[in-house]
C-alpha cells in the first residue's frame, strides 16, 4: 500500500542508485517468421529486465549478453506475440519462430450496447486509449481528444478554469438543433466521469455504428469506458501533476504608455474632410496641452496586472483487483485549476467505485458509483473587457497598493473612456459556483440459454448546480450604493433503464450475434433563482436583500422511450454484415408525431483473411467497409410544436402573456442520412491506415424558418431544408523506427469536410451581436459571413473604402467600384466559420528509458470575425480606449496621396463598421503538447516494492502559429445568446501550462 514513508525512501534511493555489474556470457541466434523468412527488428532481452536488450539484424541474427547459468529470454516485435525462450546453462545458440499476433484484430471494441472484436467492425470507429489521451492535463476530455481523432473538431474557445470545449464530429449538420456528440459512459447514455478514470474512448462516426442510438446520435457518439480490474494482483496507482499556467494573449499586443502617446498625435492633425485650406500637420501645441507629457509617468500594463501565472494540480489515486467473486476498481481525483485572471479558479473532486460481482461465471451484477463535486469562481465579461481597453495612463492602485475607486463623479483625471477601475470592481464582487453530481449504475447480466442472455442496465443520477453573482454596495457602477445578489440553482434528477435480450451463436461458418430490447430515459430539471438589491455592506445572502426582489424558476421533464435491435452476422471471419433498427418516442413532439425510426445497415470484408492475402507479408490487415443509416435529432427543447404565449412577463404588477411561438403541429424528427465507405489497412506490422469518405444529408431540418417580422414572430419551427456534409478522413499510425534502444512512432490524421445548405425555403440573414451577419441560403455554407469587402483607404481623402458590385437586371456583376459610403457597399458572402480541413500530427520518440512527445493540432480555411478590433483598431473614433500595436506594414493615412492601411482619424466614418477589415483567416497550427519523460528502471522500482515509476515534464499549448490578429484564433462555433459562430469577442484567454508529472504504480 502506498504511504509517505515509502515515497521518501524511494526519493532517497533515486539519489543513491548505482549499477552493479556481473560476469557475462553470449547467446547467439536467429529469428524467423512462420514461413521461414528472417525477421529483423525483433527486440530480445532477458526476462524481467530491459538491460542489455538487443535487436535482430537485417538477416534476423542477434547476439545477446546474459548471465551464466540458465536464463529466460523474451522476444518482442509489434504485430507478433511475445515469445518466451528458455536457454539452458550450456546453450549458446538458439533459433526460434515468432508467431503473428492478430490481437489488434481480436481486440475488443466497445460499441455502445455491445462490444465487438475489432476485426469484425463494419463501421467507422476510432478508439483512443488512455495512454494517448492523457498527454494534455485537463478536466475536460474534449481537450484531450483534440488532434487525435480524424473528423473530430475540438474548439477550446475559453481559458476560464473549468471551461468545457466544443466538439463537432464530421462538420456541423444541423442549424437550430443541438450539435454536440452524445456521450455514453460505460454503456449508458449520459453520465459523469473523471478523465483519470477513463480506460478508453471510442468515437462512433458513421450511422452504421451510431444509428443504434437513434434520435440522440446526430452529432456522433463518444463512448467513455472507465477502468476495470485487469488481473488478480491488486494494483495501485498514484499520479501527481503539478505546475502552473500562464495566459496566452495571442497576437493582440496592446499599446504601452508611450506607444499610445505617440499614436494619439494622429488625432490632432489639421484636416476637415471636404474643407479647403487643410494643412495636414499635427497641432503639437494643442496636443501637448491636451495630453501633457506627465501622463507618460504612468505605464500600467492592465493585462499583466490582471492576469498572473496560476497553479494547476491534479492528483489521482486508484486501486484495482480481482477475487474469485468480485472485481473492483476505485479511483479518486482531486483537480485544482487556478485562474490566470483575478479571482477565478476551479476545483473538482471525483470518486468512482466500479464493482462487479460474479454470482456464477456468467451471471454478473455490476454496481458503479461516481460522485463528484466542484466549486470555483467565474468572472464578469466587463472586467476582462476593461483589462484590454483601459489606458496605460491610468494607475489602478494607490500608494498602499489598494485598488482605487473610480466613477463618473471622480474629480481626479482618469483617462480611460469608462470611469471604472476593474480591479476595484473585482475586489467588490464575486461570481462563485458549485456543483454536485452523483451517478449510480446497476447492471445485471443473466444467461437464459447458452446463446441467449438477458441484460438490464440502469442508471440513476442526480445533480445540483449553483451559481451566484454578487456586487457589494461599495462597487463602482450600476450597483453602487445598492449592491446586487443573484443566486441561481438547478437540480436535476433522472434515470435511464435499458433492458436487452442478447444472443450469440455459431452456425457452421457463420456467426450471429445481436440484441433487442427497450430503453426508457427520463429526467426532471428544476431551476430556481432569486435576486435583489439593497444589500448591507459586508453581507451577501438572499435574506438581507431589501428591494427589487425577483424570483424565477421552472421545471422541465423530457422523456424518451425507445425500442432497439441489432444483428451482426459474420461468415468465415471474412464477410460481415450488420444491421440495426431503433424506434424512438420523444416528449418533444405532438401526439401522432412522437415516434421516429432509425435504421442502419453496414458491411465489411476482411480481405486480409482471404487466402490470397493470408500469407502476404506486406499487408497484414485489409478491411473494406460500407455503411448506410439514419440518425435523428429531437433536441430542440420542449413544446416547439405548440402556439404559445409566455407568462414570464409582468405589467403594472400583473401577469402579462406575450406571444412566444407560432404553432407548428406537424413538427417531427430531423433525420441525418449517412453514407460511409472506408478501408483499414495494416502494412509490415508497422503502419496502420484508415481512410473514410462520407456523404451525410440531414433532411427535414428542424429549422427556425424566418418569418416576415411583420407577423410578429421572427421564426417558425418547421421541418424543412437540408444540410449536406461531404468529407474525407485519413489517419495513419506508423512505427517509423523501432530498434532496441530507439523507437519513433507517428500518428497523423487529417479530415476534410465540405458543407452545403440545400432546399432552404428562403434566404435568411442572421445578424447577431456586434452587427455581424451570416447568410443561410440554398447552395451556401453554414455560418457564412455576409458583409461588405474592405477596400482599404482612399489615398486622396484618407476615408475607408468598400467594394461596390454593379449588377445588371439578372444580378450578374457587370463592374465593380469602391465607395466611402458604407451604406452603398455591396454585401457579399465572405467565407464560413467552419474549417475546410483539420487534423493532428503527433510524434513520440523513445530512447531507452526516455521519451519525447510532440503533439500538434491544425485547422485550416475558417474565417473568424474579430469584433474586438472595432474597439482596439478604431481609427480614433473612440480615442480613450487602448489600441493594439498595429501589425508590421500598417500605417495611418496622413496626407493626400498617402498610401496607407488605416483610415485618417479625421475621416473615419463607418471605418469600424462590419466589413472584411476585421474578418481574419482563422487557420492555425498549434503545438498542443510537448512532453519529456523518464521511466525509472524496473529493477529499481521493484526494490521499493513499486512496479513502475514514470517522471515527465510537459508543456501544453506551447505555441500557436497563425496569421490571425487577435486573441488566439480558437473561436466558438456554437450559436447562442450574444454569440455568433466564428465571431470573437474579448474572452478569457487560453492558457499555456507547464507541468511536472509523477506516476507510480505498485
Amino acid at each position, binding site marked *: 500500500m502506498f504511504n509517505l514513508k515509502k515515497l521518501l525512501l524511494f526519493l532517497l534511493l533515486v539519489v543513491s542508485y548505482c549499477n552493479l555489474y556481473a560476469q557475462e556470457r553470449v547467446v547467439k541466434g536467429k529469428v524467423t517468421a512462420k514461413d521461414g523468412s528472417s525477421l529483423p527488428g525483433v527486440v530480445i532481452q532477458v526476462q524481467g529486465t530491459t538491460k542489455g536488450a538487443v535487436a535482430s539484424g537485417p538477416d534476423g541474427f542477434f547476439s545477446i549478453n546474459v548471465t551464466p547459468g540458465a536464463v529466460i529470454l523474451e522476444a518482442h516485435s509489434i504485430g507478433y506475440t511475445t515469445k518466451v525462450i528458455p536457454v539452458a546453462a550450456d546453450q549458446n545458440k538458439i533459433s526460434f519462430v515468432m508467431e503473428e499476433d492478430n490481437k489488434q484484430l481480436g481486440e475488443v471494441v466497445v460499441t455502445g450496447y455491445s462490444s465487438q472484436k475489432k476485426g469484425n467492425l463494419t463501421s467507422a470507429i476510432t478508439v483512443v486509449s488512455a495512454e494517448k489521451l492523457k498527454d494534455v492535463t485537463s478536466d475536460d476530455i474534449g481537450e484531450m481528444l483534440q488532434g487525435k481523432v480524424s473528423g473530430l473538431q475540438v474548439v477550446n474557445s475559453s481559458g476560464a478554469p473549468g471551461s468545457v470545449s466544443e466538439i463537432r464530429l464530421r462538420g456541423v449538420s444541423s442549424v437550430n438543433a443541438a450539435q454536440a456528440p452524445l456521450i455514453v459512459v460505460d454503456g449508458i447514455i449520459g453520465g459523469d466521469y473523471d478523465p483519470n478514470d477513463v480506460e478508453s474512448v471510442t468515437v462512433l462516426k458513421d450511422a452504421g455504428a451510431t444509428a443504434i442510438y437513434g434520435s440522440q446520435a446526430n452529432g456522433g457518439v463518444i463512448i467513455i469506458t472507465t477502468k476495470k480490474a485487469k488481473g488478480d494482483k491488486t494494483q495501485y496507482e498514484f499520479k501527481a501533476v503539478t505546475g502552473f499556467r500562464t495566459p496566452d494573449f495571442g497576437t493582440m499586443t496592446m499599446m504601452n504608455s508611450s506607444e499610445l502617446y505617440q499614436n494619439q498625435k494622429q488625432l490632432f492633425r489639421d484636416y*476637415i474632410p471636404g474643407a479647403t485650406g487643410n494643412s495636414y500637420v499635427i497641432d503639437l501645441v494643442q496636443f501637448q496641452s491636451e495630453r501633457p507629457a506627465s501622463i507618460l509617468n504612468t505605464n500600467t500594463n492592465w493585462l499583466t496586472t490582471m492576469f498572473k501565472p496560476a497553479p494547476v494540480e491534479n492528483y489521482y489515486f486508484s486501486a484495482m483487483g480481482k477475487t474469485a467473486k468480485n472485481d473492483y476498481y476505485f479511483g479518486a481525483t482531486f483537480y485544482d485549476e487556478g485562474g490566470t485572471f483575478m479571482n477565478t479558479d476551479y476545483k473538482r473532486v471525483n470518486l468512482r467505485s466500479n464493482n462487479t460481482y460474479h454470482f456464477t461465471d456468467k451471471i454478473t451484477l455490476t454496481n458503479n458509483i461516481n460522485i463528484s463535486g466542484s466549486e470555483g469562481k467565474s468572472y464578469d465579461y466587463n472586467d476582462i473587457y476593461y483589462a484590454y481597453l483601459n489606458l496605460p495612463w491610468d494607475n489602478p492602485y494607490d500608494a498602499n497598493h489598494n485598488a482605487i475607486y473610480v466613477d463618473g463623479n471622480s474629480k481626479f483625471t482618469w483617462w480611460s473612456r469608462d470611469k471604472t477601475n476593474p480591479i476595484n470592481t473585482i475586489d467588490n464582487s464575486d461570481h462563485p459556483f458549485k456543483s454536485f453530481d452523483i451517478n449510480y449504475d446497476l447492471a445485471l447480466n443473466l444467461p437464459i440459454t447458452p446463446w441467449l442472455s438477458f441484460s438490464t442496465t440502469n442508471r440513476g443520477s442526480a445533480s445540483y448546480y449553483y451559481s451566484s453573482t454578487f456586487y457589494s454596495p461599495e462597487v463602482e457602477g450600476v450597483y453602487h450604493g445598492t449592491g446586487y445578489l443573484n443566486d441561481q440553482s438547478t437540480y436535476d434528477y433522472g434515470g435511464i433503464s435499458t433492458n436487452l435480450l442478447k444472443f450469440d451463436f455459431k452456425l457452421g461458418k457463420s456467426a450471429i450475434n445481436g440484441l433487442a430490447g427497450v430503453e426508457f430515459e427520463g429526467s426532471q430539471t428544476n431551476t430556481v433563482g432569486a435576486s435583489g438589491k439593497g444589500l448591507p455592506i459586508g453581507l451577501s445572502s438572499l435574506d438581507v436583500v431589501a428591494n427589487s426582489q425577483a424570483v424565477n424558476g421552472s421545471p422541465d421533464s423530457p422523456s424518451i422511450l425507445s425500442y432497439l435491435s441489432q444483428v451482426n452476422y459474420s461468415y468465415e471471419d471474412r464477410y460481415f454484415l450488420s444491421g440495426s433498427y431503433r424506434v424512438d418516442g420523444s416528449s418533444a413532439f405532438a401526439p401522432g408525431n412522437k415516434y421516429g425510426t432509425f435504421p442502419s445497415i453496414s458491411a465489411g470484408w476482411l480481405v486480409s483473411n482471404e487466402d490470397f492475402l493470408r500469407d502476404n507479408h506486406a499487408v497484414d490487415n485489409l478491411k473494406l467497409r460500407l455503411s448506410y443509416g439514419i440518425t435523428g435529432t429531437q433536441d430542440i427543447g420542449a413544446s416547439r410544436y405548440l402556439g404559445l404565449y409566455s407568462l414570464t412577463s409582468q405589467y403594472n404588477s400583473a401577469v402579462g402573456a406575450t406571444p412566444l411561438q407560432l404553432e407548428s403541429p406537424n413538427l417531427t424528427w430531423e433525420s441525418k442520412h449517412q453514407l460511409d465507405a472506408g478501408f483499414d489497412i495494416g502494412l509490415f506490422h508497422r503502419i496502420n491506415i484508415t481512410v473514410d469518405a462520407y456523404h451525410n444529408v440531414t433532411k427535414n431540418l428542424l429549422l427556425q424558418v424566418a418569418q416576415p417580422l411583420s407577423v410578429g414572430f421572427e421564426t417558425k419551427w418547421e421541418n424543412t431544408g437540408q444540410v449536406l456534409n461531404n468529407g474525407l478522413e485519413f489517419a495513419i499510425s506508423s512505427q517509423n523506427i523501432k530498434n532496441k534502444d530507439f523507437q519513433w512512432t507517428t500518428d497523423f490524421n487529417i479530415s476534410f469536410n465540405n458543407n452545403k445548405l440545400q432546399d432552404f425555403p428562403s434566404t435568411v440573414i442572421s445578424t447577431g451581436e456586434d452587427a455581424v451577419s451570416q447568410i443561410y441560403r440554398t447552395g451556401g455554407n453554414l455560418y457564412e459571413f455576409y458583409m461588405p469587402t474592405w477596400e482599404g483607404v482612399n489615398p486622396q481623402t484618407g476615408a475607408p473604402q468598400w467594394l461596390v458590385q454593379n449588377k445588371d437586371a439578372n444580378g450578374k456583376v457587370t463592374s465593380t467600384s469602391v465607395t466611402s459610403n458604407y451604406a452603398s457597399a455591396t454585401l457579399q458572402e465572405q467565407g464560413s466559420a467552419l474549417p475546410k480541413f483539420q487534423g493532428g500530427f503527433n510524434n513520440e520518440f523513445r530512447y531507452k528509458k526516455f521519451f519525447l512527445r510532440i503533439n500538434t493540432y491544425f485547422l485550416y480555411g475558417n474565417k473568424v470575425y474579430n469584433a474586438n478590433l472595432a474597439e482596439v483598431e478604431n481609427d480614433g473614433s473612440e480615442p480613450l480606449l487602448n489600441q493594439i500595436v498595429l501589425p508590421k506594414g500598417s500605417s495611418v493615412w496622413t496626407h493626400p496621396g498617402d498610401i496607407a492601411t488605416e483610415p485618417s482619424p479625421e475621416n473615419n466614418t463607418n471605418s469600424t463598421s462590419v466589413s472584411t477589415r476585421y474578418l481574419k483567416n482563422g487557420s492555425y497550427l498549434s503545438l498542443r503538447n510537448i512532453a519529456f519523460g523518464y521511466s525509472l528502471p524496473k529493477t529499481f522500482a521493484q526494490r521499493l516494492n513499486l512496479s513502475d515509476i514514470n517522471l515527465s515534464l510537459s508543456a501544453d499549448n506551447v505555441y500557436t502559429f497563425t496569421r490571425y490578429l487577435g486573441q488566439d484564433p480558437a473561436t466558438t462555433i456554437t450559436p447562442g445568446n450574444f454569440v455568433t459562430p466564428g465571431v470573437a469577442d474579448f474572452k478569457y484567454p487560453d492558457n499555456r501550462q507547464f507541468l511536472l508529472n509523477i506516476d507510480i504504480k505498485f
Partner: protein
Amino acid sequence: MKNKLLLIAAFSMLIYSGCKLEDNPTNAVTTASLATTSDGLLNAVNGAYALFKDHEVFEGTTDLNNMYLRQYFQMSDFASDDVVCGQVTTDPFFLTFSLGFTPTQQNASYFWYISYKIISDANTVIEAGSKISNPSAAQQQLIGECYFLRAFCHFNLVRFFAEPYTINPTAPGIVLRTSTTDPAIKARSSVKDVYAQVIADAIKSSTLMTDGASRGVTFATKEAAEALLSRVSLYEGDYQSTITYSNAVISSGKFTEATASDYKTLFANAQTDKETIFCIAFDALDDYGKLGSLASQYYSNGNSGWGEEYASQPLRDLYAQNPSDVRTSYIDDDLDSSGAQQYKNGIPIYYVTKFSFQGGSPTLSSPIMFRLSEMYLNRAEAEANLGQTSAALTDVDFIRSNRGLSGALYNGTVPTGQTVLGAVLQERRLELAFEADRTFTVYRNKQSMNKTYWGYHLQGLQASDINLSVAPANYPNMIIPYTSTKIIYYIPEAEILSNTAATQNP
C-alpha cells in the same frame, strides 16, 4: 437463484407502463387557451403593454439595448436638433446621429418586430373577443384597448418607416396587419391607407372603452384613443378633426394641466400626474439601471448611466431666452464642485432628466405617450393652419402661463419676424422636447433640420477640432432637408428577405 433474478428483471420492465412521453410547458400557455380561460384575455392584453418595456429575445439574443420605448425615443429624438451626441459608439443608435442608416441596423429591426408582436397580440385578443357573445364592459374594454394598441403601433411604424402624410400620402406605408390569419407575404399599404386603418381602429377603440371599465392612465382609455386621433389628424393635415378630438380630451375633465411648480415632478410621477393621458408603467422591477434603461444615455449620477447624449446648444439657447421657463429644470448642467462646466470629449454636458427619478431612482420613469399639453399644442397648430391666429396663441399662452412664463405671453400678437405657426411650433419644441415629437414635427411641416452645432453627428469629428466659440463649418449633412431620404429608416432587411411583396425605401 437465476429465476429470482429473472423475476426482478421482469418487474423492472413494468416501469414503462407509466410513461406518457409528455413534457408540457410550465411557464407558457397555448395560444388557443387564451380565449377559453377566465384570465387569458386579460393576461394577453397586459402582455401587449409589457412588450413596450421588456427586452425581448431578438436575433437569438436578449440584448438589454433592445426595448420598444428605447428605440422609439432614440430613433426620433436623436435625429432632431434637440440632442447632441457626446460619444461615438458602436450602438446602432449612433446611426441616427450620423445618418449612416442600414437595412440591418438592429434598433430599427427590433422596433419593427416588437411593434408587430404587439399588433399580433392585439389581433389575437380581438379575434378571440369577436367570438364572445354579449361581452361584458370589462371584456369590451380589453378589446377596445387592443384596437387602440393596434392603431398606436401601426401609426408609430408609419411615422418611422414611411414618408410623412403631408409630403406624399401615396408613398408606400407599412405592412398592415389586422388579422392573425393573413398570408405572411403581404405588400406595404400606402401611407394614406395606413392612416385610414389607424383612424378606423382608434375610433372603434374609443367606442368600446368606457369610463366605468377604465383601468387608469397606465392602460389605454377612451381619452387615449381620442388623443391618438388628435395626433393622427394633425399629422394627416385634417385640422378640423384635430380640433374636435383635442377638444374631446380637454373637455373630458379628467386631466389638468400641470402648474409651473407641479411641472418639475411631472415626469417622475407620470403615473399619478393629472396631465398624463397615457403612459407605460415601469415599476421597481423594470428599473434596468445603466444597462438598458431609457435614462441611461441621457443622464448619469456618476454610476447610474452612460450619460453620453445631451441637450443641444440650439435648444438650450431657445430656453435661455426666458430664464424663468421651468422646462429647463429637466436639463441638468454638469458642473464640478468649483462650478466649472464639465465636458465629454469636448462637448459640454447638459443631462436630460425627463426619464429619471420615479421613486427617486435615476434610471426609472414611466414614459408618457400622451399628455394634456400636446392636446393644446395640437389644437393650436390646427388653428394656426386654419388661420385662427388668436385661438392658436391663446392655446400657446395657456401652456406658457403654466411653465413660469406668465410674464412672456403672446397675448394674441404674433411677434414681428415670426409667423403664428412658427410660434406654435417653437412652443411645441420647448414643451415636447425629448418626447419623440420634434423630428416628426419638423419634417411633416416640410421644414429642414438644422444640426449646425458641435457634436459627434459631424463626420470624423475629433475632440481637438471643437471650437465652441464658433459654429462648425464645412461638415456634410449639417442641414437635412425634408426631401432627404434620410428622414426615415430602411425597412428591416429581414422583412424584405422573407416578405417578397415588401419593397425597400430608397
